């Protein structure tokens, strides 16, 4: 009976696979970021293979993946997720493992394992970009320009609403850094109950002045509309709003939190083969460099670095806008994925209770 069901299931999946083989569903974060991927990855991929890419967006693609896989109803083939989420989902057996040998070498022959920066290749995930959470302000609405992360949490110095991502990750770290915790000690402090209390105490002070955002496209919009004076944001979104749409927005790099975005394939993805092809194609040296000309995120391959030059407007130099630029790394924190793999559930639970109270 069991064998029969299994056979039937295989037959059904193969049939379904055959019907829809010419389509891959890629879930990403929306807005300018999705656009950069469509331009740099999707269009050339479709041109070369004839496989259509269906692009869908979510506030955080890790959440629908988990729901879909656990409910046994997977429709996403490739998703773009944060580092800790990639590791966590992989740990829980919710992702397909990726055979790293499918990744092409760099043009100079360096094998992929050496070409990707440290940590960019995981059992179930391949990184495409390095991005960071920064905070930005609207130069027209702030008389006294903020320069440090402490200014963000200081409502007496700079009154007005602040936008913050509705999630514990990055918010708690920033609160601690604003409270004077050195970036190298942030995760040690946050690992203790007192540290967590301390972070929430900082947030308590500005709670009434926070506008929470969930989708990456919201902060530039909130800033441009004047709904908030400052907001945390993904650095690339601010760059695009400031350069491509000429909004008066400025990034403050102090206290930025660096992270990877990685491609993963959910377990039971309907078009697994094509999904793997897509990942191999998109993370080659040239595609990663191409993406960086559409949005200011650093490519995850060392060999792509030299190919990054000018923004798609034809005049803006990308280098100084990258989160990894020397000048921007003064007080930067690298997201500790192991910390969040373990603590994400617990801290978000506390965070949500705090939000609701």
């Amino acid at each position, binding site marked *: 009976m069991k064998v029969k*069901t*299994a056979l039937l*299931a295989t037959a059904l999946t193969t049939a379904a696979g055959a019907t829809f083989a010419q389509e891959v569903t890629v879930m990403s974060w929306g807005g300018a970021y999705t656009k950069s991927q469509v331009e740099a990855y999707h269009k050339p991929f479709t041109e070369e293979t004839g496989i259509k890419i269906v692009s869908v967006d979510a506030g955080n693609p890790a*959440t*629908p993946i*988990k*729901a879909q*896989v*656990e409910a*046994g109803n997977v429709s996403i083939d490739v998703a773009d997720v944060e580092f800790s989420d990639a590791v*966590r989902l992989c*740990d*829980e*057996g*919710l992702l397909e493992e990726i055979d790293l040998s499918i990744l092409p070498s760099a043009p100079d022959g360096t094998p992929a394992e050496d070409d990707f920066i440290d940590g960019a290749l995981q059992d179930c995930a391949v990184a495409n970009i390095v991005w960071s959470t920064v905070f930005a302000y609207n130069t027209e609405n702030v008389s006294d320009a903020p320069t440090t992360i402490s200014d963000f949490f200081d409502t007496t110095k700079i009154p007005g*609403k602040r936008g913050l991502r509705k999630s514990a990750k990055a918010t708690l770290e920033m609160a601690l850094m604003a409270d004077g915790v050195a970036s190298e000690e942030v995760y040690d402090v946050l690992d203790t109950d007192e540290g967590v209390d301390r972070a929430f105490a900082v947030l308590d002070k500005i709670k009434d002045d*926070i*506008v*929470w955002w969930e989708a990456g496209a919201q902060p530039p919009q909130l800033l441009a*509309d*004047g*709904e908030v004076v400052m907001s945390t944001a993904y650095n690339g979104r601010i760059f695009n709003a400031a350069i491509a749409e000429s909004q008066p927005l400025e990034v403050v790099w102090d206290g930025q939190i660096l992270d990877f975005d990685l491609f993963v394939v959910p*377990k*039971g993805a309907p078009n697994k083969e094509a999904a793997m092809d897509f990942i191999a194609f998109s993370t080659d040296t040239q595609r990663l460099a191409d993406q960086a000309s559409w949005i200011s995120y650093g490519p995850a391959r060392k060999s792509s670095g030299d190919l990054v030059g000018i923004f798609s407007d034809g005049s803006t130099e990308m280098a100084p806008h990258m989160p990894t630029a020397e000048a921007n790394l003064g007080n930067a924190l690298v997201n500790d994925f192991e910390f969040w*793999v*373990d*603590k994400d*559930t*617990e801290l*978000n*639970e*506390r965070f*949500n*209770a*705090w*939000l*609701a*109270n």
Partner: protein
Amino acid sequence: MSDATLSPAAMADTMPEQLTTADGKPLKQALIRAQSHARRRAFLLVAPLLAFILLTFVMPIGQMLHRSVHNEGFTWHEDVASGERTRIMANLSQWFDQNELGTEPGEAAFAALAADLVVLREVKAAGQAGTRINYERSGSRSMFTKAARRAQRLEAPFKEAIVDLDEDWLDPDLWRVMRDASSSYTANFYLAALDRTKDADGNVTPVNENRQVYVKLFQRTLFLSIVITFMTFILAYPIAHLLATLPLAKSNLLMILVLLPFWTSLLVRTTSWMVLLQSQGVVNDALVSTGILADDNRLEMMYNQAGTLIAMTHILLPFMVLPLYSVMRPINPSYVRAARSLGATSWTAFRRVYFPQTVPGIGAGALLVFILAVGYYITPALVGGADGQLISNLIAFHMQNSLNWSLAAALAALLLGGILLLYWLYDRLVGIDNLKLG
């Protein structure tokens, strides 16, 4: 057309015994047969729809609610790709069966745990099992993932080895939670939905203050729904009265102003309110440009409770106007006139004569608005910010983000229970047949 007048018994009683039909059967029997035939025919007409609703509505909801008492996170692991089910935590569960609550976990217990951790590691179920425990004891998930990662290297004495990883493994509360979770059926999610938990001895206690959410949210949902119901009543009463007393041609025209919002997309109405109420929105702009407000002193009416209140009052207002109108329209104006001519002031005449006659309409409208408000989701999600969220939003959060489906189901069951109670009340007081749509 009440059932009683036509019931076979009632009719048969009035018939003399000896009457027969043309083919010689007693009339009483023939009538009963005809009646039951008619009943069956009526039921057959309804049956397809009833079956449809039971299948696509009642059953899915029942199945979902089952999750509120059933969770296999700590008992079974199912591989998503192959569908293969593996029993997890079997050794520990056996230890729990042999030792009653309160037994100090000794080497045997930790050896069972160590064996189970190896299984967790093999089938990649540490996250799942840890998450299940974490629902009831915060901070447990990371203990399981860490311990499972080192499971193969654990050696006897296991108690020492595991406690070495994390002191919390000795926590009696942890062992109480694991004991409860080692059975697939539990009522603990209902406790959690009421901000309650059990202590190490199995007594029900409130959860830590900084994690209490749900009772507060139920209270807020009730409070906001009452306020919304009251506001719709305050706004609906005058215009329903106006509509009911105007000549029909005029009132039909004005009625369009009530019905148009009713027919307009909920998302459109919510968007409109966002446009109006934002701090850079139409209302604030108008107030600033007319000099009523200073530019740096704009009103905050969006992304908070005020946003939820205003938008929901607007959206639910027609549900209050319509029942009020249908009660007010037939009220004979001569009653009020009579009261006035007997010397009552217009206020007294209104209070003593007119108002009491509209009470059924108020009851019908208020119940309907309240029932609809309690379950609202879209509008609070879009305009409510952090403190304007209702219980539905929290159910959605646990469904989509935290994926604590059992808790979502328990919250849904409590909400549904309350609503069905009100619905039953509505049926008793107003009658579902009297529900009108414009």
